[in-house]
């Protein structure tokens, strides 16, 4: 069974902590969904000391915390942010985001590999937010990453998997590497689909936090991820072109 740097997640849903209507709703979303990881970030402290109360809140969630380098556009910035995150959150885990493009928020795969190498050598356990590019994946593994997190679609787009074909190829290319679909999920069926392809986890935030009912959606996503995982493990039927009767034909009465 694939683990995340030796850690087995209590649940394959990784849930973001941003954009919720209130801290209470955020906390309840985690409680109801049983999400296995909480992603967080670092920002300048606000006037009201929000940072300190947020720290209290996520400490109480009782799940591993995965700090990100969201918004970083350079290697230097990402590396420094990672170091600060390690101290504040007291974890070696870092979700390495190195944004290369403002509209799509797509990763800069060049800076990503470079930063991943620096951080891995410095003892970090890197969760790189990357694309479905297999070569980039190989470089990241060579750089010391033991997890890959290809995007499903641009962050916050809620479009679902833009390139299932390539994501499927990535799964079969790296059979032993924990793979996470990160970003782009909008609906439970998207999350289920990712797991049905054999992915190990799904990371999402906006789809839950911005839903009309974030708590219910968090739960829906959690169930969908479990359903997809269970379905994948249950060895699904092959899709076929023609129909095949489910009800037995033998023993059918003659009534015409």
């Amino acid at each position, binding site marked *: 069974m694939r683990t995340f740097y030796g850690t087995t997640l209590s649940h394959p849903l990784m849930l973001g*902590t*941003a954009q919720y209507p209130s801290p209470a709703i955020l906390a309840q979303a985690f409680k109801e969904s049983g999400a296995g990881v909480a992603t*967080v*970030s670092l920002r*300048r*402290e606000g006037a009201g000391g*929000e940072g300190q109360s*947020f720290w209290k809140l996520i400490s109480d969630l009782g799940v591993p915390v995965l700090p990100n380098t969201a918004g970083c556009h350079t290697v230097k910035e990402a590396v420094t942010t990672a170091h600060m995150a390690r*101290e*504040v959150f007291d974890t070696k885990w870092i979700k390495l985001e190195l944004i290369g493009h403002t509209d799509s928020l797509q990763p800069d795969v060049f800076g990503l590999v470079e930063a991943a190498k620096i951080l891995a050598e410095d003892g970090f356990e890197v969760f790189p937010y990357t694309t479905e590019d297999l070569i980039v994946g190989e470089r990241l593994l060579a750089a010391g990453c033991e997890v890959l997190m290809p995007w499903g679609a641009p962050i916050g787009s809620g479009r679902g998997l833009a390139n299932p074909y390539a994501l499927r190829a990535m799964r079969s290319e790296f059979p032993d590497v924990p793979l996470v679909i990160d970003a782009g999920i909008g609906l439970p069926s998207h999350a289920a689909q990712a797991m049905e392809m054999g992915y190990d986890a799904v990371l999402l935030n906006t789809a839950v936090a911005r839903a009309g009912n974030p708590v219910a959606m968090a739960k829906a996503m959690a169930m969908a991820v479990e359903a997809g995982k269970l379905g994948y493990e249950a060895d699904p039927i092959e899709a076929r072109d023609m129909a095949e009767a489910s009800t037995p034909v033998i023993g059918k009465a003659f009534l015409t």
Partner: protein
Amino acid sequence: MKIILNGEAQDLAGPNLAEALEQAGLTGRFATALNEAFVPSHMRAQTLLKDGDRIEALSPMQGG
């Protein structure tokens, strides 16, 4: 001396980072960078400031 703390100019006595942060009233859980370089908490006391230094003090925050 004049210090840019989290993007805002302040007049802080220092002389070191640890004391400057205290003078700025910063408490609780945060990490620091001086002139865009990380400074571990245990190094703050022995990190002297000079006029115009830029400090970032970052706290836990929501993230995706």
